[in-house]
């Protein structure tokens, strides 16, 4: 059980879950609106961007069909990220079995709005993406959850199945690797 009081966001999530279970389908839509974009960012950053839509949708379907398995040990948000991560890993394993290249490349980080960026900004983005591309899969997962989503080490540990200490080490190693890449 969590040793801290749930945040307002977490209480809202639990309230929406209760309303959905009571038959209010609109509550499910609100939950999708609250978390889909963050899940999409995560999936795009650690998986293949072609799969983003499908993985995010599968994440929600999985979560809602097994909602009674959600015991509230973590926040709903963390639980959703855990499901999304496992789906990404599953797809990665399946692709590996098929002999497809599954390494995450810098280009996999979404670039939907690049045409709108200025040349300098685009170059900066390219360099940053390249720096992120040097991270190991685990470093990338931890770094994305920490920097892009602002998760605590505790939440990250729950999501990727590790300890808070290990998550902290992964984050700082990732930060060091990115700085070294950018300094070269």
């Amino acid at each position: 059980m969590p040793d801290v009081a749930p945040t307002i966001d977490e209480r809202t999530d639990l309230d929406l879950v209760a309303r959905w279970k009571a038959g209010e389908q609109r509550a499910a839509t609100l939950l999708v609106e609250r978390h889909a974009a963050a899940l999409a960012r995560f999936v795009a950053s650690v998986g293949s961007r072609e799969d983003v839509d499908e993985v995010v949708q599968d994440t929600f379907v999985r979560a809602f069909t097994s909602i009674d398995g959600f015991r509230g040990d973590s926040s709903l948000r963390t639980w959703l990220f855990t499901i999304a991560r496992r789906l990404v890993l599953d797809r990665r394993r399946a692709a590996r079995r098929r002999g497809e290249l599954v390494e995450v490349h810098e280009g996999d980080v979404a670039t939907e709005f690049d045409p709108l960026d200025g040349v300098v900004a685009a170059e900066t983005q390219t360099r940053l993406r390249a720096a992120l591309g040097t991270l190991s899969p685990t470093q990338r997962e931890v770094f994305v959850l920490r920097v892009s989503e602002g998760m605590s080490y505790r939440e990250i540990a729950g999501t990727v199945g590790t300890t808070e200490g290990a998550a902290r080490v992964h984050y700082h190693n990732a930060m060091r690797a990115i700085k070294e890449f950018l300094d070269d």
Partner: protein
Amino acid sequence: MTDCPNGDVRDLLPEYLHDRLTLADRRAVDVHLATCAACRDELALLRDLRGTLRRAPAVDMDAIAAALPAYRAPAAAPRRVASGWRIAAAIVALAVGGTSIALLQRAGSRATPSTTPEVAAVPAPADAGATAPDEGAQPASDDLASAAQPAESLAQAIQPFERELAVAGAAINELSDGELASLVADLETLDAVPSTEVETGESLTAVALRGALP
């Protein structure tokens, strides 16, 4: 780019960026940032990286919401009956099996001493009396009686266990529906918590859509 030696503050920078710090922590970081160029650089880098990472493709939220099933409470009753009967069958099997094993062990341990007279009851040669006396040598009539002893003792040993076996079998069979339901309910509490592991397999969207179809 240099690293600030104050690891505690560096550790807080992502949460500072996301405004997830307590007021006290935020003020402490603000004070530190005012005098630390390395941390200001790291914070700027984190802000740029966040901007890069947040450029994700938009997802079709309406499609996702439309694919979500309506809530269905777990159908506990049918599952409990089914698993209850399996458990009851397992109990019967265990009772019979366990009693049989105990029976054989007890019977074996009682039968073991009787093997000694059995060996001693090997009929002596006809001229045994003319030769040196042998403790094992017995008259023919005694030989038959001794040979019968193990069988009798085995039967005596089995008798009470046969009764136990019958009682064990009957105990389950003679339970009323209510008693059996109560037993099954008790056994249900021994069940492991159902796994919440995420299964990996076919697309869950497809599964959900199938379930949603009339």
